[in-house]
């Protein structure tokens, strides 16, 4: 599904290399986790894949189902099936959550040459999905993420993912800031979307999330590349001993 090879990325404005030869492959149907120390470049990877400005790819490739991602505009990547649940979801005063999501769903459908969703159908679908995530009607009416608590913002990201039904979902620390119950809700939301035709890349600092969303592969990222990959037991090792041992052995 997602294939990254030897990716080198620097900041556009400064001479600062952040990703230094990162390679990673997530096949369809699998869940991969990325763990790694603060500042190792995990969010940068997610931004570069989803098309944020300000980064320069100096080497390497990234493809989604064989199509070059790096050549596309952010919205084209989304229409191609890429989704990023932001580490810090953005507040947009003045744009209603509902309007935003309907615009997004229909923009993607249009870009793919599919029929737009009617207002009535959209309402029906979003209500059902919001209910599963315990997002109340009031939150849907409010401006995007404005006045949402940290946990509510993260649940709103998962709601967007559920509505957009992407093929490749990148979750950047969706678990941070969640209480125990919300973690369960979000994990259930993610697990409900697990599908042979869909893949997940879950960035997290905590093994706890991976008890709920059991990964096929765990990658350890440090200094802008993947330094070790393994099964779910790797996450337990991180939890117990930190990164120092792993990085030495790498």
């Amino acid at each position, binding site marked *: 599904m997602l294939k990254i090879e030897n990716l080198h990325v620097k900041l556009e404005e400064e001479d600062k290399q952040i990703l230094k030869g990162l390679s990673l492959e997530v096949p369809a149907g699998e869940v991969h986790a990325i763990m790694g120390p603060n500042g190792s470049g995990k969010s940068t990877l997610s931004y570069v894949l989803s*098309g944020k400005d300000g980064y320069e790819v100096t080497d390497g490739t990234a493809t989604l189902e064989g199509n070059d991602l790096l050549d596309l505009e952010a*919205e084209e990547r989304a229409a191609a099936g890429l989704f990023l649940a932001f580490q810090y979801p953005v507040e947009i005063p*003045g744009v209603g959550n509902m309007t935003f999501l309907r615009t997004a769903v229909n*923009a993607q459908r249009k870009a793919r040459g599919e029929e737009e969703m009617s207002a009535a159908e959209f309402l029906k679908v979003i209500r059902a999905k919001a209910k599963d995530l315990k997002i109340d009607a009031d939150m849907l009416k409010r401006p995007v993420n404005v006045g949402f608590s940290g946990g509510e913002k993260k649940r709103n990201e998962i709601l967007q993912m559920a509505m957009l039904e992407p093929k490749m979902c990148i979750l950047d620390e969706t678990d941070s800031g969640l209480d125990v119950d919300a973690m369960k809700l979000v994990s259930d939301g993610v697990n409900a979307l697990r599908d042979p035709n869909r893949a997940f890349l879950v960035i997290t600092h905590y093994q706890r999330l991976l008890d709920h969303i059991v990964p096929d592969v765990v990658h350890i990222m440090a200094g802008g590349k993947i330094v070790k990959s393994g099964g779910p037991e790797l996450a337990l090792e991180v939890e117990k001993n930190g990164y120092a041992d792993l990085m030495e052995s790498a």
Partner: protein
Amino acid sequence: MAVAKEKLLARKRDALAERLGALTLPEGGAWITEARKSALGRLEAMGLPAPRDEYWRFTKPDLLNAPKPAPAAVFDHGDEMPVFGEVDRIKIVFVDGVFDAAQSDDLTLAGVEIDRLAEAAKADIHWAKGVFGTVELASQTPVERPLAALNTAFATDGVLIRVTGKAAKPISLIYKHEDDCSDAILHNVVKLEPGAELTLLENGPAAARFNKCLEVDIADGARFHHIRAQGRDHERQAVTGMFVRQGAESLFKSFTLTANGRLTRNESFIEMKGANASAHIAGAALGHGDFHHDDTVFITHDAENCESRQVFKKVLQKGAVGAFQGKILVKRGAQKTDGYQKSQSLLLDDEAQFLAKPELEIYADDVACSHGSTSGAIDEDMLFYLRARGVDKGTAMDLLVIAFVAEAIEEIEDESFREEITERLESWLLRRRG
């Protein structure tokens, strides 16, 4: 210094003499002739506005002062539906400043008296006597408004509306522009008796050059709503004055949507003379290219416990200039005043310019007044968030533009008008993207 000042005044009077050469005082009955002569008298004392005048530093008055208007091409609206087209209303149509009976409705509405100025002017006496030119005169202190005095003196027509009850539908003034060289001067008066309520709609470019006054006298407990769409024609040259006097417990709400235009100066002066009154004035302007748009607002709190709100939003790009001059004056004794002013611009590129002059002048001690003026660009993080969800860049920008002006549109009380204005804005933005 004194010599320089004398020279300046002489220049203003010369400009006026030239302008007056192209105008004739319309004939009329005693009441209006008196009002017109008095306005002409104050105009002659002031002269025309000059770039050195305190409130004309941001906006060059030349186009508005010139004896003849610069020609302005009639704008082709294509297949665009006229604003308020679906609203059940009393339509009053002026074409290049001339009343068009065929396109207008019957001027009858329960609880409302509607007269045309041109007709009422023939009488010796009219109920409008206490309002016409009077509220405008009050607005001349402390800031002179020569073009408003010129309007009172020379307006050829307009409507005089007296509301005694709750008007069942809005009155809609439609100003059409068909002649490239027309110069229209219209003067409207609205008098709301105690407890009365009216919604006034205005739209259209009116003429190549348009000088328009609206005087509003709102008695105790009366409510007035004003929604205006000035249009998106590129060559508009307009100066409008809205002069308001409010009694106790009264409500005044005004919103204006403007796009494009070569020069648009919207002045307002609101005086709150009775306790517990509320005045809200808001505007949203979109400017692109050779666009100059100026809101100059003066709100006087002259009674206790009144509330005022000014919310102005301008979206500017490609050399467009937006100006905002807003003042809240709280007079001695106007305790418990709650005054708030916000003027913001969204600059879509480096060529656009926003000039702001927010002012507070307060002579009472127990008041809450604030103002905030900001200029900013599109928030890149918001833009990326929208695009990352699949919304294309153009649509995402439009969503953020609408979000930016939403606060001004929110000032419209009626939800269906809020929706209509928002949809209109969306369609204008869409057209602009082509």
